[in-house]
């Protein structure tokens, strides 16, 4: 009797965690990243998590990716993204609050052709994994900084270019922050990159948390979407403790 219950429980568990489906990418690293990023939580490969990237990287130092998990609006706890074959794979970890859409666009560096993944953790404890493949000549992670080659970049450090665009009932918030995002892989230049960001409302209440990693390209360009048309601010901090804030 006891054994039967265990068996039943096991059956139910495996039914709830139905097969993750077939990996849409020709990946050699999936299992490694699944364990490292998703832990022991169940996951599914899910094309309702729309991960867009160009089919090829025209500039391996600035490859745009966009994650759209609005199919799970209201259920998203966290979105994490990584580039599997990058020396620095992690891109961001994004926790949108209730007023913030589970959508984020950003640009990254790729060192070679690679699968990109965006894993969306929903409130039922399941990871939904969106995938894209980027073809690339590569070298984006180890190429010398473009920002540092520009005269006066230190004076422009942390300058914010931002605007709000009305998209129906939502606002699209777009921001570029001038920062070299040094990843420590270019000779003689230590890691110096933005690692924390918070979207806040006018009263300073946190709307969303974003953790950034140095796979993010120089002069990061970030797009977010929030409900309503109220003003908002993005606060950023780099690993040297410099803080920047821009208003939309």
């Amino acid at each position, binding site marked *: 009797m006891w054994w039967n219950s265990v068996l039943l429980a096991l059956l139910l568990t495996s039914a709830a965690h139905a097969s993750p489906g077939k990996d849409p990418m020709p990946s050699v690293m999936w299992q490694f990243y699944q364990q490292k990023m998703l832990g022991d939580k169940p996951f599914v490969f899910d094309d309702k998590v729309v991960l*867009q*990237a*160009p*089919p*090829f990287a*025209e*500039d391996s130092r*600035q490859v*745009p*990716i*966009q994650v759209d998990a609005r199919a799970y609006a209201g259920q998203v706890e966290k979105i994490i993204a990584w580039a599997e074959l990058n020396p620095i794979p992690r891109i961001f970890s994004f926790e949108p609050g209730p007023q913030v859409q589970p959508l984020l*666009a950003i*640009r990254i560096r790729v060192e070679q052709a690679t699968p990109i993944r965006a894993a969306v953790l929903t409130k039922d404890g399941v990871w939904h994994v969106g995938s894209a493949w980027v073809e690339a*000549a590569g070298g984006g992670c180890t190429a010398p900084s473009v920002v540092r080659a520009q005269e006066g970049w230190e004076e422009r450090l942390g*300058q*914010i*270019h*931002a*605007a*709000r*665009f009305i*998209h129906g009932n939502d606002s*699209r918030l*777009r*921001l*570029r922050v001038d920062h070299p995002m040094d990843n420590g892989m270019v000779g003689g230049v230590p890691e110096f990159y933005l690692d924390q960001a918070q979207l806040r409302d006018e009263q300073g209440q946190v709307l969303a948390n974003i953790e950034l990693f140095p796979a993010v390209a120089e002069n990061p*360009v970030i*797009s977010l979407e929030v409900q309503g048309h109220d003003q908002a601010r993005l606060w950023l901090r780099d690993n040297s403790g410099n803080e920047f804030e*821009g*208003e939309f």
Partner: protein
Amino acid sequence: MRLWCSLLLLALTVPVAAAQDYHLQPRQIAADTWLLEGSRDNFDKTNGGNIVNTGFIVTDAGVVVIDTGPSRHYGQAMRQAIASVTSQPIVLVLLTHHHPDHVLGNQAFADVPIAALDGTQKLLAEQGNAMAENMYRLVGDWMRGTEVLLPTETVAAGERQVGNHRLRLLALSGHTGADLAILDERSGVLFAGDLVFYQRALTTPNSPGLEVWLKDLDTLQALPWKLIVPGHGPVASDAAPFAQMRDYLGWLDGLLRGSAAKGLDMNEVIRAPIAARFDGVNLSRYELIRSVSHLYPRYEQQALPLR
């Protein structure tokens, strides 16, 4: 046994050698003027990078070559093609700009003055090796032995007499920042380089801006030309290539400006619909993806004010 081995070797080598023949067929397009027309496709391992138009003018003082193609092997094949129609020696090579499909055949012309604009020389010195490396990735073994050979002579805008042909050289910039166009005043043939693409989407990796390019088109169209040789696509004796270029550049500029004003990100722009009238323009989606990478940041900067 030895015979079998030789046969086997032959069987292995022949298809490879056959596959790597550019089959260059010089076509006479005007008096003394010959064209080697490439395909309208992208670089790949079947075309060996022959996606480009090169040409040559046979003057009574020798041959002027315009662009040398995508590889050393192409340059050598081009020399043979030239020798098949004239016994005149080659006296001058003119490079229209520094992009790899136009200059990586230079090694085959190492015994001849190779002339280009000063800006072309600088851009090739700066970007040549990276571009050549990328060509090896895209077209593979066709590139064997290809290395960047820099121009040996600088030309500027003005007239240049070669034998019985007076060439008008124009120093323009819309495509790469240093673009040489050549009008043969004797034949009326205008070698426009990549300032003019026709039935093939234009490329923008080094363009200083689409408005600069549009001005260059005005300059070119005002010349007394009879036949246009675009850098890519078929020759034309009417102004259709200019009309298509203006239309396409205007559409691209409007798309990028409008998208930035709507707050779109790059992935949304590269998936934008392409106007149906450009259906006949080969590779327009592919080149839109590239152009968004090259140009969209400038449009974004205008739409995202400093805070």
